[in-house]
């Protein structure tokens, strides 16, 4: 190592969900190599075999307190496939509504509570936007933080009504949902959504949502001046966040909110600047740098066997998922790119911190419209649950989109018991360690080249990049 070259261990890494540690090798004032460690193993995939398949619906939401409904929805879909049943269309609609609310509040929480507070830090004190950032986003004190918590809690009343509580509901079932909403419930839901729109338009965007959704280019986006979105975009332009932490441009979406007429946001891949069909048979989980034993395998054949020795050649409990041998980035940016929104497609050309955060804002706006459509389409006279089924033998694949991206559950049922259960979470993709070819995971790759200032122990630019992915580490290893 020459002078100035050093190694940093960054942790505890907070304002991400769960435990994260990052090892950085710094050379010439920038990150030469990053290694991402998920330092917590709980072993959910080992808890499930032998259990009644229905019990997955109680256990898997508790993998994660922030993606709890996504875990429910993935399990319900995998179980439905395993016993060849489907939810009623209206049950599917209410499940989508509940799920979309979780994703929306996760985006709102991420932007206000997790991501923006970094711009209030002292090293930015000379910037002309710093005073505004401090007023809005100072941790635990900023005006935006308070307003966010109140809007979030109020919108979650819809989940309280339809699904009992958040997180950890048992309301989403293979056949639909456990509670049939009435016309009065529908009116209350629409009232809650109207109040939430008022928050988004008054505080987050400072303008009608439709105007933000109508943006088609990064240049137009950077001219957006109103609301907290405008403050972020001002900061992003000043700090060059568009070029910071760029990804490989390969995006994966399993498709969000399956409904009678198709998905709310389409499934697919974006690769080499073009759409490609999604074939989940090409997924493998590589274990070469994970503290896991066994060969690389498709999740339907995978095992979870922790390496108690924590061998030196590995550095994370996270497995390394690959699609056709390649890393994939997943999340709101991936969803909006695959769904074909012109702004997202333009942002994807750079695919850095700005792209990820702006795509989350875009999805927040678009999801509000989707939520309003879902709520207006509730037919209280309909059935919200298809008949009970017996789960004897079968295999299932449950694919959903959590706030942070593609979430898949693969299970096998034999003689009425779970025989195998494997989960690949969004942050398993994004925060994966290296694979047997030595290819780094998406965040590891995005961190290479990120500038580190002399004397920085917990480099700010690294924090921006990592948080731009909105990691959920408790889902990652599960």
């Amino acid at each position, binding site marked *: 190592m020459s002078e100035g070259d050093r190694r940093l*261990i*960054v*942790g*505890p*890494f*907070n304002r991400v*969900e769960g*435990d*994260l540690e990052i090892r950085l090798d710094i050379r010439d004032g920038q990150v030469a190599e990053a290694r991402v460690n998920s*330092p917590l*193993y*709980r*072993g959910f995939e*080992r*808890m499930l075999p032998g259990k*009644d398949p*229905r*019990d997955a619906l109680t*256990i898997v939401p*508790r993998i*994660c*307190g*922030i993606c*709890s409904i996504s875990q429910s929805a993935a399990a319900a879909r995998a179980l439905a496939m395993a016993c060849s049943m489907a939810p009623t269309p209206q049950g599917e609609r209410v499940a989508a509504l509940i799920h979309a609310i979780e994703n929306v509040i996760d985006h709102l*929480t991420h932007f206000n*509570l997790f991501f923006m*507070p*970094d711009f209030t830090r002292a090293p930015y004190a000379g910037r002309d936007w710093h005073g505004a950032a401090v007023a809005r986003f*100072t*941790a*635990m*004190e900023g005006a935006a933080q*308070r307003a966010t*918590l*109140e809007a979030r*809690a*109020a919108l979650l*009343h819809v*989940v*309280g009504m339809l699904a*009992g*509580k*958040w*997180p950890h*509901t*048992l*309301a989403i*079932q293979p056949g639909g*949902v*456990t*509670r*049939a909403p*009435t016309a009065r419930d529908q009116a209350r839901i629409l009232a809650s959504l109207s109040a939430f729109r008022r928050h988004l338009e008054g505080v987050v965007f400072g303008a009608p949502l439709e105007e933000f959704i109508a943006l088609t280019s990064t240049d137009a986006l950077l001219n957006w001046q109103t609301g907290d979105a405008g403050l972020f975009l001002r900061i992003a332009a000043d700090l060059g966040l568009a070029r910071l932490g760029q990804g490989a441009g390969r995006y994966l979406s399993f498709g969000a909110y399956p409904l009678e007429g198709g998905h709310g946001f389409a499934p697919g891949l974006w690769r080499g600047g073009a759409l490609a069909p999604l074939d989940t048979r090409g997924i493998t989980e590589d274990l070469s740098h994970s503290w896991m034993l066994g060969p690389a395998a498709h999740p339907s054949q995978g095992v979870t066997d*922790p390496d*108690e020795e924590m061998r030196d050649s590995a550095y994370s409990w996270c497995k390394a998922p690959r699609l056709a041998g390649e890393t994939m980035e997943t999340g709101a940016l991936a969803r909006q790119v695959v769904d074909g929104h012109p702004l997202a497609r333009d942002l994807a050309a750079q695919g850095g911190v700005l792209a990820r955060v702006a795509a989350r804002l875009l999805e927040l706006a678009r999801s509000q419209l989707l939520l309003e459509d879902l709520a207006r389409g509730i037919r209280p006279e309909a*059935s919200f*649950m298809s008949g*009970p089924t017996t789960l004897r033998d079968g295999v299932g694949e449950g694919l959903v989109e959590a706030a942070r991206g593609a979430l898949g559950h693969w299970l096998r049922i034999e003689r009425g018991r779970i025989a195998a259960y494997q989960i690949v979470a969004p942050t398993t993709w994004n925060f994966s360690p290296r694979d047997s070819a030595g290819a780094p995971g998406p965040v590891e790759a995005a961190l290479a080249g990120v500038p580190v200032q002399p004397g920085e122990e*917990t480099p700010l630019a690294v*924090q921006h990049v990592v948080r731009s992915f909105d990691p959920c580490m408790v889902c990652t290893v599960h």
Partner: protein
Amino acid sequence: MNVLWLQSAGCGGCTMSLLCAESPNVLDLLAGAGIRLLWHPALSVESGAEVRALLAAIEAGAVALDVLCVEGSIATGPRGTGRYQILSGTGMPMLDWLRRLAPLAGDVVAVGTCATYGGITTAGGNPSDAVGVQYDGARPGGALEAGFRARSGRRVINVAGCPTHPDWVTETLLLLAAGQLEETALDALGRPRFYADHLVHHGCSKNEFYEYKASARSLSEMGCMMEHLGCIGTQAVGDCNIRPWNGQGSCTRGGYPCINCTAPEFEEPRHSFTETPKIAGIPVGLPTDMPKAWFMALASLSKAATPERIARNATADRVEVPPTLRKPR
């Protein structure tokens, strides 16, 4: 009152629930009571080296630690090392951090059923050998010994629930800040009695169905879920139906059974969570404090007396038969 919040082996859901506190929001509520979060993994700006410096200052006695909140179970595996969870950036297992910090704390609050008793992290053979802070399931003695006492002289305060209701956590902290949480305010399992002296059954919106044992047969039906669908709200502690969740919710109001998530070992009920175990067709498990013979006698009598309205609505997913209107006199 200085509070340090650590997340150990759990899902983070108790924090996510805490952020749902209302009237006022959680930030105003804590600040208004003089409660200062020294560091919280989801809320604080400090990251990495700044947090390590804070932990060092607490250990050196330079920063007073009034309350240590622990959310999540404590992984003791593999083979007792605790290395299934290293507190990132420190190279030291959370198990060891807890044992170092707990004796320095005025009080230790275990938040959620993972932290109190092990919880869902210990389900299915407990792959990470997880335990609660001061309990291993229902057995005293977890990551800390059964005899552990914080500086206040109190045992670990167990705010159980999966997740915890936001008010259970905030009110525990409010009472501590006000110096009003005495030993007698905790039940035999260390849970604050202000919510643990109630049963989930209290205020359940299905109470009329329960009175007649008018039962739902499958999820989405409106009837009582005790007989067939695994509901143990008559035995589970919690004020879930007295002060609702997220506005107006609760598990039973959402149409699914109470799974007794405030209790040790709820994660392994030895039957499916959504199916009531039966012997010779008779459900196993009695409402709390109910003599068996009386319960059987009353149940058969009330079942026979079930009004048509209640019987029909019990197996419907909405009110099919409204209450008969009484003619005004």
